[in-house]
C-alpha cells in the first residue's frame, strides 16, 4: 500500500463551524459583525438564539480559530456596542483541512465506485 493511498485525518470542524468560518473567509479576511454572521446562517436555515450563537463564537475564539473584538456602531441614531469577528491563520488552516478532507474523501470514493 502506497503512502498516497492513506486516508486523511477526520476534520476538526463541525458543519456549523465550517459554515461560520467560511462566511468569515468569504469576505477576504475582513472582519464581520456577529449580527451579520447570524443573518448569514439564517440563509442556510440555521436559526440560533443570540446567546447560543455567541456561545458558539466564544468557543471558536477559545480554539484560536477566530478573534473577537468590540466596535461601536450607530444604529437608528443609537450607539450599539457590537461584537465583531475575524478569522485567524489557525482558523483558515482548520477550514482548509476540513475542505480537503471532504474533497479527497469524495474523490477517493468516487474512484472506488467507478473502478
Amino acid at each position, binding site marked *: 500500500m502506497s503512502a498516497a493511498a492513506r486516508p486523511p485525518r477526520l476534520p476538526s470542524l463541525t458543519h456549523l463551524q465550517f459554515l461560520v468560518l467560511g462566511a468569515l473567509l468569504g469576505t477576504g479576511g475582513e472582519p464581520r459583525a456577529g449580527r451579520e454572521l447570524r443573518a448569514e446562517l439564517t440563509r442556510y436555515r440555521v436559526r440560533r*438564539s443570540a446567546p447560543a450563537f455567541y456561545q458558539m463564537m466564544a468557543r471558536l475564539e477559545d*480554539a484560536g480559530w477566530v478573534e473577537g473584538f468590540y466596535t461601536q456602531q450607530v444604529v437608528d441614531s443609537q450607539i450599539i456596542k457590537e461584537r465583531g469577528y475575524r478569522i485567524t491563520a489557525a482558523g483558515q488552516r482548520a477550514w482548509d483541512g476540513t475542505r480537503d478532507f471532504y474533497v479527497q474523501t469524495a474523490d477517493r470514493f468516487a474512484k472506488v465506485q467507478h473502478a
Partner: protein
Amino acid sequence: MRSLAGWVQRVARWLPGDTCARVFEPSLEDLRARRLGRIRFAVAAIAILAESFRVAAGARLRGDQPHRQREIDSRGAGAMDTVAQDARYATRMLTKNPGFTAVAVLALALGIGANAVIFTLIYGLFLRPMPYADPERLVRVYGEAPERGLSRLGSSQPKFEHLRDNQQVFDGFASSLGLVFSLSGFGDVTQIFGARVTCNYFDVIGVRPLLGRTFRPEEEQHGPSLALVGYSFWVNRLHSDRAAVGRTISLDGAPYEIIGVLPPLPVADFGRTEVFLTRPFDLPGLTPENRARGVTFLRVTARLKAGVTIEQARAGLAVALDAYRRAYPDKADSTWGPSLVPLREDLTGNFRPAMLTLLAAVALVLLIACSNVANLLTARFVGRRREIALRGALGAGRAQIVRLFLFESVLLSLVGAGVGIAFAQVGLRTLPFIADANLPLDDGATVSAQVLGFTVLIALATGFLMGVYPAVQAARPSPGDALKDGGRASTGARGQHRVRNLLLAGQVALSLVLLVGAALLVSSFTRLQRQEPGFDPRHVLSATLVLPAAKYPTPDHQYRFYQQVIDALQGNGPIRLVSFVQGLPLTGANSRAPYARADAPVPLNERPLGLARSVMPGYFATLGIPFIAGRDFSARDTRDSTPVMIISRNTARTLFPNEDPLGRRLFTGSQGGGILTEIVGVVGDVRSVSLAQDNDVEMYRPASQRPINLAQMAVRTDGEGLAALNTVRAAIHSLDPELPLNQPTTLEALTDASLGQRKLLMALLATFALLAVSLATVGIYSVVAYLVGQRTAEIGIRIALGANRRDVLRLVTWQGLQPVAVGLGAGLAGVAALGRLLASQLYGISALDPATLAMATVGLGVVAIAATLAPARRATKVDPIIALRAD
C-alpha cells in the same frame, strides 16, 4: 428602560467565566439594535438572560474545552435538560386540567394584578427617581408655630434673603412663587400656570435646560423680561420648534423673550406650570411695604451640603433664624421656627397613609389567592399519589418530585402574573376616571419595566410559597400505601385536613378584615358626601378670572370691572346672582391672616392665623350661605370708609363667647400692625378647607377694602349651572375681549373633586374587598366540594345504613363551616388590631363601629353558608348503590 437593562446586566454578572462579556452582552446589543418597544424589549432581555444562563450551564456540564470542540446543540444535556423536561411536563399537566388551571390562574391573576396596580401607583409616587440631580439632598424650608397650630408656612422676602445670606448648611437656597398669566398670541387668549423663581432655582434643583440657558444673577431683579418655557409649552404651543429660543411670547400683555426650554418636570412638584419668569418677589397686589413687613408668599427649596444631615441643617437654620428674630423682632413671621421637609416627602407624603392601606389590602388579596390555590394544589397533588409512588419506585428522589410539583405551581403563578398584568393594564386605564386629577403621576399610570420586574418576583415567590407545602406533603415516601387501590389512601392524611382548614380559616379572616375596611371607608365617604358644606353648591357655575396688571393696575380698576360683570349678568336670563371671591371653598385656595381682639391685642408675630377671604357684595346670597346676624357688604363699604368684616358663626363663638359680636372690632392682617376692623355681620359656617374639617376662624372682607388678586366667579342660575356659560362668556367678552374665562365648572363638581383622593381609596379598597370575598367564596366552595367528592363512599354507606338526608346535610355543612367560624373570629381580632391603620382615613365613624362589624361578619357568614350548601346538597343526593359500586 435603561434601568431595566442595568438590572438585567447586574444579574448577568453572575454568569460563569466570561460568558457575560462574550455571550450575554453582544446578544443584548443585538436586541437593542432591533429597536423594540419598551415591553417587548423588557421581555426579550429577560429571555436573553435566561438563555445565556442555559447555554453557560450546558457548556459547563459538557465540560466544553477548546480541544473538545462540539457544535452547540440547542437541546443541551444534563441538568438543564431535566429542568426543561420538568417544565414541559408541568405545562402538559396544567393543560390536561383546563378547569383547575383556569380557576387557579384567575385567582392568582386577580391577586397579582391588584398588586401590580398598587405597585404602579407606589412606584410612580414614591420610588421613581426624580429628574433632579441628587434629589435626596433637596429639602423644602417652611416655617411652623406648633403652639398656634400652624405648620408648613411659606417664607417672606426679608426672611428668605436673611436665611439665604446667613446659613451655612445649604449649597443652594432658592424660592418660587406660583402665579397665573394670560397668554396671548397663540389663538384665543388663554390663562396658563406660571411661576416666578430666583435666578438660581434650576441650579439648586439640578435641572439643565433642553435648549438655551437659565436665568443669570443680574437678571433676577432688573433687565429685560425673560422667560423659560416648560416642556409641555414647547411641545404643544411651540410645536417643538428648536429655534424657540429668542422668540417672544406675550404674558399679561407684556412681551417676554424665551431664553430656554426646560425638560419635563415632575407633575407633583410643578403641576401644570408652563412658564418660568424671574423677579421672584413680584406678587401682584402686594406692595413693597407689605413685602418688607414679612408677608409670607414664597416657597423655599434648598440643597443640603454634601454630608450634612437634615437634623444638622435644622439646627444650623435655627441659629440663622435666631439672628433673624433678633434683627427684625417686628416682622410678622419672626417668631416661627424652622421646619425642613425632604422634597419627596413634601410632594407626595400626603398619599402615604392611603397607599399603605392599599398596599396592605392587596397583600391580603394575594395571600387569599395564594392560600386558595395552595388548597387546590394540595388536593390535586395528593390525588396524584399513585403517580408519585410509581416515580419513587422507578428511582425518583423526593427532591425531584418536590421540584416537579414546584414547577407546576411556579408555572401557574407565572401564567397568573401574565394575565394579572393584563388585568392591571385595564385597571390602570380606569383609574384616572376615579382619581380625577388627584394622582400626580408623570406619565399617567402605566405598567413600567420596574413594575414588570416586581410582578415577576412576586409571581416566583407566590409560586414557591403556595407550592412548597403541597409538594412536600405529596412527595412523602409511602409508595406501598399509595399503590393500594381505593380506601382512604387518596383522601389525604389528617394533617393535610388541618392545613386545608387552616388555609380556609385564614382566607375567611383576611376577607373579613378587607370587607370591614371597605365598609368603613364606604360609610365614611357617604357621610362626607352627605355632610352639609355650609353652602348650596347646586345650580352654581364657577370660573376663574385673572385681570392682567397692565390693564387693571389698581384695586379700584379691578373692583370696577367685577362690578360691571355683576351688573351685566345679574338678572340676565336664567342668571339670578353673581359674585366674586378670592378662593371658592374646597378649591384649596385658602389665604390666612393674623387676627386679635381689639380689646386684648397681642404682638403681631404672636397672633393666630385665621382663614380670610375677600368677597364682592352678594357673595353669601350667591353661594347660599345663611346670614345669622348683621348685614352684607354694600357700596357704602369703600376704601375710605371704616374697615369692616363679616365672620362665621364659629368665629363668633371662639372669639366672643356669650357676647354679641356685631360692632366689635378685630385687628386683622399685618399692615401697620393689623387694621382695626369692625364686625358687621355673622354668617353660617362653611367647610371651606375640607368637607371633613370644621374651621375655627373664618373672616370675610369686602373686595373694595381688601383687593382680590385671583378672582373666582360664582354664578347662581335657575337651572343647570353650565347652561349659563355662554351668556357669562359673552358678557365678559363684551366688557374685555382679551380676557379669558378659565376652568369653567360647577360648584358641585368642585365639591365632588375635593373628595377625589378619598373616592379613589374607597373605590380601590371596595374592589379589593369584593375580590377577596369572591376568592374566599370560591375557596370555601372548592374545599367543601372536594371533601364531598372524597367522602362519597362514606356518605353512601351512611345513607345505606339509615342516615337521612338531613343528617348528611348537617354533617357536611358543619364540617365546612367550622373553619369559617374560626376564620370569622380571627378576622374580628385582626380588625381590632389593624383598625388604627384606617382610623386616619375615616370620617364620622369609629374603626370598630359595631354595626359595620356585625354587618360584615353576618354578610360573609351568609356567603360562606351559601358556598357550603351547594356541595352539601349534592352530598345528600348520593345514591348509595352507585357510590359503593364506584369505589
